[in-house]
């Protein structure tokens, strides 16, 4: 009797499951500003071609987990996926993504146009910058330095060009205006690593040495971390748990003077309903120190899982979405483009005053180390950076330990 009931339930439920059409496309996007543009593009595509577009929005960490799970078990749940560039090396192994080279050749083309900014195209290739294309760049995201131009002008200071200038300005303006001179993300994991990389690079260090060995215990790296702690002195306490929203909230509420930030936050800075500092923020390049300042690249790419059953249609969509006209439309919606022509577009520059700065930053941006083990490495690196910032470990020990762990991760996975 109970078995009969179960059967009945199954039959009725089977009827009301899966609504995603077999003939449509399922697109996985990041829940947030970056995903917003692709979401809108999918809607436009549906209007234009009638292909049913099914958009799934997932938060950053879930997006990664779901996509990777789909790629590894080839469930074919997604036809187009959006990915943050550091995930690319892990995704592009083992034939999990569809190579775009053949798809381009099938259309009689060489590959992506040179209009795409090179730094963004390089991260779409496996191996980096030289191999086949497995993705196209959609969101031209790279860090910018946000600073209160009005306050800098007030104290007759020029936009900071070096990190030393940043610290000086932070101390001077901060104490005079009773604000925090600086604010940064230092929550363990992706947040603290993202805010530390530009410092690490500017001080002449890197996670890996040119011969691919972990080199975090170099004297330059230690100086970089010590400097981060010095900045921490003029940062709101509790920054060791900060993520992007806390950092931006400080800027928006006018309680902090400067920070590294991402283009997604440019809009809200000038939005009356969110900001107390409309028009007062200036955008400049990441400061230099020993080396020229380089922004960390955080481009979002679009790719086609090899488990997808609609490869041709998916390719059509992503080519259309990354075309100059569509990128311009997306740019008007707030999406940082990845094409030079779009960055140079007069109408866009008029609307988005930070575009020239963004283009410069993107062109010279540096990607994080291209390794499939990045997640584990970032996790461990993040833990020790967080400890150093919470002052529970001194900088030298923290970097030494991090280096040890990273070496262990690599040797474990050989």
């Amino acid at each position, binding site marked *: *009797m*109970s078995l009969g*009931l*179960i059967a009945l*339930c*199954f039959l009725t*439920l*089977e009827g*009301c*499951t*899966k*609504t*995603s059409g077999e003939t449509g496309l*399922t697109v996985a996007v*990041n*829940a*947030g*500003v970056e995903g917003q543009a692709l979401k809108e593009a999918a809607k436009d595509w549906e209007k234009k071609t009638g292909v049913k577009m*099914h958009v*799934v*929005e*997932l*938060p*950053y960490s*879930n997006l990664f987990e*779901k996509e990777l*799970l*789909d790629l590894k*078990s080839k*469930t074919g*749940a*997604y036809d187009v996926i959006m990915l943050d560039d550091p995930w690319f090396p892990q995704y592009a192994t083992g034939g999990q993504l569809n190579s775009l080279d053949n798809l381009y050749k099938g259309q009689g083309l060489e590959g992506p146009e040179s209009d795409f900014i090179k730094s963004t195209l390089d991260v779409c290739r496996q191996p980096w910058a030289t191999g086949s294309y497995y993705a196209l760049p959609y969101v031209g995201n790279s860090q910018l330095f946000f600073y209160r131009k009005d306050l800098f002008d007030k104290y007759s200071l020029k936009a900071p060009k070096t990190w030393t200038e940043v610290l000086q300005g932070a101390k001077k303006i901060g104490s005079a205006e009773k604000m925090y001179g600086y604010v940064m993300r230092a929550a363990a994991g*992706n947040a603290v690593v993202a805010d530390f990389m530009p410092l690490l690079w500017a001080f002449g260090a890197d996670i890996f040495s040119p011969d691919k060995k972990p080199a975090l215990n170099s004297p330059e790296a230690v100086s970089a971390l010590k400097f981060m702690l010095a900045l921490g002195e003029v940062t709101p306490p509790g920054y060791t748990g900060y993520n*992007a*929203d806390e950092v*931006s*909230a400080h800027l*928006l*509420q006018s309680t902090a003077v400067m920070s590294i930030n*991402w283009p*997604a*936050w440019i809009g809200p800075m000038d939005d009356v*309903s*969110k*900001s*107390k500092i409309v028009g007062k923020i200036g955008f400049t390049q990441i400061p230099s120190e020993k080396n020229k300042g380089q922004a960390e690249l955080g481009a979002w790419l679009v790719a086609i899982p090899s488990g997808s059953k609609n490869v041709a249609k998916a390719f059509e969509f992503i080519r259309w979405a990354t075309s100059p006209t569509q990128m311009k439309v997306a740019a008007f919606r707030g999406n940082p483009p990845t094409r030079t022509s779009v960055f140079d577009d007069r109408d866009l520059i008029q609307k988005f005053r930070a575009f020239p700065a963004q283009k410069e930053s993107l062109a010279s941006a540096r990607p994080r180390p291209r390794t499939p083990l990045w997640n584990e490495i970032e996790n461990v690196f993040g833990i020790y950076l967080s400890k150093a910032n919470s002052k529970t470990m001194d900088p030298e020990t923290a970097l030494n330990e991090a280096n040890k762990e990273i070496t262990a991760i690599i040797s474990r996975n050989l």
Partner: protein
Amino acid sequence: MKRTVTKWGSYIIAGSGLLISLAPLYWLLTISLKTEIDQFASPPLWFHFTPTFVHFQEAFGVNEFGKYLFNSCLVATSSTLIALVLGIPAAYSLTRLKWPKNQAEKIGFWILSNRFLPPIITIVPLFLMMRNLGLLDSPVALIIVYVGFNLPFVIWMMQTFIREIPPELDEAARVDGDSYFGALIRIILPLASPGIAATAIFCLIIAWNEFLLALVLTQTESSMTLPIGIASQVTQYEIRWGIMSAAGVVATVPVLIFSLFVQKYLVRGLSMGAVKG
């Protein structure tokens, strides 16, 4: 005199306890009704703000929360119903029917131990299982898994409730010619109804609030439930507090109202059986 002081003292303490319990919920409600700039205002705006419904519109209009709500309702009610339908006969069998020596107890313990299985162990194999069955990303997968989740609890609770009912009652019914099944329906069920209500409520709440399994087994909004939708407002760059709290309010209100009504049954049901072990 001392009596009144302690009486007042008790009320004050109970009242402050109540305040601590409910204030965060009230705050959630206000966040869902405030504009973004008000949400982060310092000093905090407990009462003086202009409410706006824009977040509710965003959540249920533009975003997929209507679908999430539907999925949550579907999955919670179906799994509870099925768990009861399967669990009550099982509990009856274990308590009333004759089993060899200690077998009933051993089986009961094994069933209960399933409740304590850390989900982490089971999520990957369950994911693969559902994928192979073609049930991935469908409410059916969640329903099946939640039934498994709740069955131990149902069986165990129903066992204790049934034990409370004097066996003479259903024995009398059977002596009068009723089958075991009839005795179950006509005697046990009505007498155990407060217990059944309590069990059902717990199952509903557990299924409604569940997160980890839903996280792994759902891929698109065809099957995503409210908790997943709410958590997905924590994006990389910002937390969409407005949408999240609007959805949170919608996720919580039904549970609260429902529980207030049956609060009496909850306590009675629990005291009737579970406590006696």
